[in-house]
C-alpha cells in the first residue's frame, strides 16, 4: 500500500505525554482556549460592529465544519488507519442526525403549522398517531441513546456480515455506497415516517431552550468543539495502542496479520462500529446547529466527499482530517457563492490531484517539509 511510516508509539504505560508530545498538548490547549473563551466572548460579549465581534454566521459555519471534522476523523480511523474505504459514512451521520431530529421534532410540541401534537408532515399524511418507532422519542436521553445505538448497531450487523465473508477493497466500498443509496431511497418515501424529502426542519427548542437563541447556539458550538477534542484524544489513544498497531498492520498486509494469529474480523468490526458511532454523534450535533436534516445527507455523493476531506488533509494522521474538512468546506462555502458553476470542476480536480500527487495530504506536506 502506501507504506506510511509507523507512528511513533511504543506500547507501555499509559500517560498523557505518551499520548502526545508537550508541544502538541500546547497546540490543543490553544485550540481549546479559542473554542471555549475567545469565540464565546467574541460572539456574545463583544458588541456587533466591533472589529473583534465574531458573527453568528461565522459561529454556525465553524460549528458545522467541526461536525464535518469529526466525521472526517471517523473516516480516517477506518480508512487512513485500517485501510477500509467506506463510501457510506454519510448514512451513519444522517442516522445520528435523524435520531436527534426526532427529539427536536417532538419538542416543537403544538407550535407547528397545524397546531397538532404530531409533526406537520404526519398531519399532512393524515396520520393519527406516532408510529411505534417514534415511541419515547420525546425524551432527550432516549434519543441520545438512539444517536449512538442506531448507527452503531447498523454498522455492527452490516460489518459483521461484510467482514466475516472477507469483503474488502473496492467491493466493500461499493457495497457501503449501495447501502447509503438504499437508505436514501427509503428515507425519501413519505411512508417511512421521517418526513420524506423535506426531512425534519423548523425546530423550535432543545431541552427547553429556544434553538435559535445566541446562547443555545454557542452552547452547541462549544459542545461540538469539546466532542472534536475528545474524539481526537480518543483517536490518539487508539492508534497509539497495540490495537492501533494491529489496525495499521491490517491496512498494510491483512493476510500477514491473519497468519500471525490475529483474527482481523473483530479488529475491523470494532473500529468500523466505533467510526459509525462517532459519525452518528457528529450528525446529532450537526442537526440542531443547521436546523435541518433530510435524506440528501445520505446521497452517495455526500459520503464520498467525506473521503476527500480526509484525503486532502492527510490519511493516517489525526490532525489531517480536521485540516482537510476545514479546508475543503471553507473553500466550498466561498466557492459556491463566488463561482457556483465551477465548484464541481474544482472538487473533481481535487479528487484527482490529491490522489495522484498528494497521497499524504496537507499533513504529509508539512511532515515532508520538516
Amino acid at each position, binding site marked *: *500500500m*502506501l507504506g506510511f511510516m509507523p507512528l511513533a508509539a511504543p506500547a507501555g504505560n499509559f500517560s498523557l505525554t505518551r499520548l502526545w508530545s508537550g508541544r502538541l498538548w500546547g497546540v490543543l490547549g490553544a485550540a481549546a482556549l479559542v473554542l471555549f473563551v475567545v469565540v464565546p466572548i467574541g460572539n456574545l460579549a463583544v458588541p456587533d460592529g466591533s472589529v473583534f465581534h465574531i458573527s453568528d454566521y461565522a459561529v454556525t459555519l465553524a460549528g458545522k465544519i467541526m461536525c464535518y471534522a469529526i466525521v472526517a476523523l471517523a473516516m480516517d480511523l477506518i*480508512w487512513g488507519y485500517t*485501510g477500509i*474505504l467506506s*463510501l457510506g459514512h454519510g448514512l451513519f451521520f444522517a442516522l445520528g442526525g435523524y435520531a436527534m431530529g426526532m427529539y427536536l421534532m417532538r419538542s416543537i410540541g403544538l407550535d407547528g403549522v397545524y397546531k397538532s401534537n404530531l409533526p406537520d408532515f404526519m398531519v399532512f399524511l393524515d396520520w393519527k398517531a406516532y408510529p411505534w418507532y417514534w415511541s419515547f422519542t420525546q425524551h432527550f436521553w432516549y434519543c441520545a441513546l438512539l444517536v449512538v445505538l442506531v448507527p452503531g448497531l447498523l454498522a455492527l450487523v*452490516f460489518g459483521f*456480515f*461484510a467482514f*466475516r*465473508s*472477507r*469483503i474488502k*477493497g*473496492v*467491493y466493500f*466500498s*461499493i*457495497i457501503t*455506497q*449501495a*447501502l447509503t*443509496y*438504499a437508505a436514501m*431511497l*427509503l428515507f*425519501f*418515501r413519505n411512508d417511512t415516517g421521517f418526513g420524506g424529502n423535506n426531512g425534519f426542519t423548523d425546530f423550535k427548542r432543545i431541552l427547553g431552550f429556544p434553538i435559535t437563541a445566541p446562547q443555545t447556539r454557542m452552547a452547541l458550538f462549544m459542545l461540538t468543539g469539546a466532542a472534536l477534542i475528545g474524539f481526537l484524544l480518543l483517536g490518539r489513544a487508539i492508534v497509539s495502542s497495540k490495537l492501533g498497531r494491529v489496525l495499521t498492520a491490517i491496512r498494510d498486509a491483512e*493476510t500477514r496479520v491473519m497468519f500471525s494469529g490475529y483474527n482481523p474480523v473483530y479488529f475491523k468490526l470494532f473500529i468500523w462500529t466505533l467510526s459509525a458511532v462517532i459519525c452518528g454523534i457528529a450528525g446529532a450535533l450537526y442537526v440542531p446547529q443547521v436546523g435541518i436534516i433530510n435524506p440528501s445527507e445520505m446521497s*452517495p455523493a455526500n459520503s*464520498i466527499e467525506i*473521503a*476527500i476531506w480526509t*484525503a486532502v488533509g492527510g490519511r493516517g494522521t489525526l490532525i489531517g482530517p480536521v485540516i482537510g474538512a476545514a479546508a475543503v468546506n471553507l473553500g466550498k462555502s466561498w466557492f459556491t457563492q463566488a463561482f457556483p*458553476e*465551477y465548484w*464541481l*470542476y474544482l*472538487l*473533481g*480536480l*481535487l*479528487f*484527482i490531484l*490529491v*490522489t*495522484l500527487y498528494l*497521497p499524504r495530504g496537507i499533513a504529509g506536506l508539512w511532515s515532508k517539509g520538516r
Partner: protein
Amino acid sequence: MGTSDAGGRQLKFVLMLAAWWSASLAFALPAPVIKDLAFGESDAKIEAIGKLVASGDGAALPFLQSLLDGEVQTSGEDLVLVVKGDSAVDAVTGKVVAPLPEARDDVVVNNRLRRELTTAIAALKLSSPDRAVRLAAAKDLQNNSEEAALPAIDAALAKENDQEVRGLLALTKASIELRSGDKDKRVAAIRALGNSDTGATRTLLQQVLERKGSVYVEPDARVRAEAQRSLAAVERRLMIGDIAARIFSGISLGTILLLAALGLAITYGLMGVINMAHGELIMIGAYATYVVQSLFRQHAPGLFDYYPLVAVPVAFAISAAVGVVLERTVIRHLYGRPLETLLATWGLSLILIQGVRTIFGAQNVQVENPAWMSGGLEIMTNVVLPWSRVVIIAFAGCVLLAVWLVLTRTTLGLYVRAVTQNRGMASALGVRTPRIDMMAFGLGSGIAGLAGCALSQIGNVGPDLGQSYIVDSFMVVVLGGVGQLAGTVYAALGLGIMNKFLEAWQGAVLAKIMILVFIIIFIQKRPQGLFALKGRTVEA
C-alpha cells in the same frame, strides 16, 4: 373594368369549385331525414337516428358527425346548414351557402342525443370497408355500449370476418346483454364474457357478484355461478398477461443493466479498477446520440429514420475515446491502488457531469425515436411490448455477441483474458500489459457508450443519467463475478426480472433494498460471484 371582370370570373370559378367539392362529400341523405334530425323533437331525432343505423348506410356518417360536433345550424323554417368556421353548406343540396344568413339557430344536442349519436356513429363505422375504422369503432363501442347499438352489432357480427373485430364485438354484445332482463340471454352473455382478457370485463363480472350486506345483488344463483366461473377464467388470463408483461419488462431492464455492466465487467475484471466514471461514459454515449439525432434533423430530415445507424458507432467511438484519454491521463498512474482509483474516477465523473452541463445545459435533452421504433407489439389486449424496448433487447444481444467474439476470437481478446487471469505471467510471456489495459479500457468505455445510445431511446437524457447506473451495474458485476461473460448475463437478467417482480409486490424502493440485502447475503455464500475463474491466490 376588365381586371375587375376577370377577378369576378375567377371568384365564380372558385365558388363553383368549392360547390363541386362539397357536393362530392354531400350528405347524401333524403331531405326528410335531415329535416327530422334538425327540426324534430328529441324523440323524432332519435327515431331518425335509429332508422339510419338500421339501414347501415355509411353515407349518413359525415352529417351525424357534424351534428355531434355542434356544426349543424338551422335558418328559417327549412334551411339546414353545416357550418365550419366561416363557410356553410346546405345539408340537403350540398351547396355552399354564401353569404351566411344572419338568423341562425344551433341544433341543440342534449346528453341523451349525444349518446345516441355516438353509438350510431360507431355502429355505422362498423360497416365500413376499412378494417382499421371497424376496429377503432369496435373499441369505441366497448367503452360506451348502449342497447340501441345491439342491432348494429348483430348486423356487423353477421358480416364481420376479422377475428379481432369479431372478438371485440362479441364481448360488447355480451356486456350489453348482461344488462337485459332475459335470464338465458344473460347466462349466455356471461359465458361469452369469460373469453375476454380485459380489465373492464373483470369489473363487469365483479358487479354481477356484488353483495349488499350479506345479500347478493343478483338474485339468480345460476347467473352467479356462471359469473363466478367466467370471472375466474378472465382473472387467470389477466394474471398470465400481467406476468408476461412483468417478465418482459424485467428482461428489458435486465438488458439495460447488461449493457451498462458489460463494459464495467471488462475493466474491473482486467484491472481491478472500479471506474466510477463509467456511468458518465454511458451519459456521454447518450449525448453523442442526441447530437447525431439533432444533426440529422437539421441537415437530413429525410434520413431521420436511419440516424441510429450512425449514432451507434459514433456513441461507441466518442465514449471509447474519452475512456482512453481518462486511462492515459489519470487511471494509469493509479494501478495497484484501487481505493484511490475509486476516488480519482469519482472526481473525473464530477468533471464530466459539470462539463456536459456547461456544454448542453443542466436541463434534460429530448432524443426522438425514429418512426420505426415507436408503437408496440400487442401480444395480448393488456400486454403491449414497445418496439423501442424490443429493439434494445435485440441490440443488447448483438453487443453481447460482438463482445464475445472480440474476447474469444481475436488476439486482443486472448491477451485481455490472459491479463485478467494472471497479469504477471502474461507480462512475462511478452504481452504488453499497459497497451492491453488501454485497449480494454477503451473497449469497456465504448460499450458504455452503446449503453447510453440505447438508454437515450427509452428515457430522459440529462447530465445525471449515469449516476443512477453505477451502483446497479456494479451489483451486476458483484453478482456475476468477473472474467466470464455468462456471469454478467445471468446476473443482469436475473436482477432485472427479480427487480420487476419485487417492485410489483413491494414497490420500487423496497425492491431495491431487498435486492441489496439479497446481494449482501449472496456474497456471504459466494464471494466470487456466480461464475469465478479459479485461481490460486490467497487474496482473491
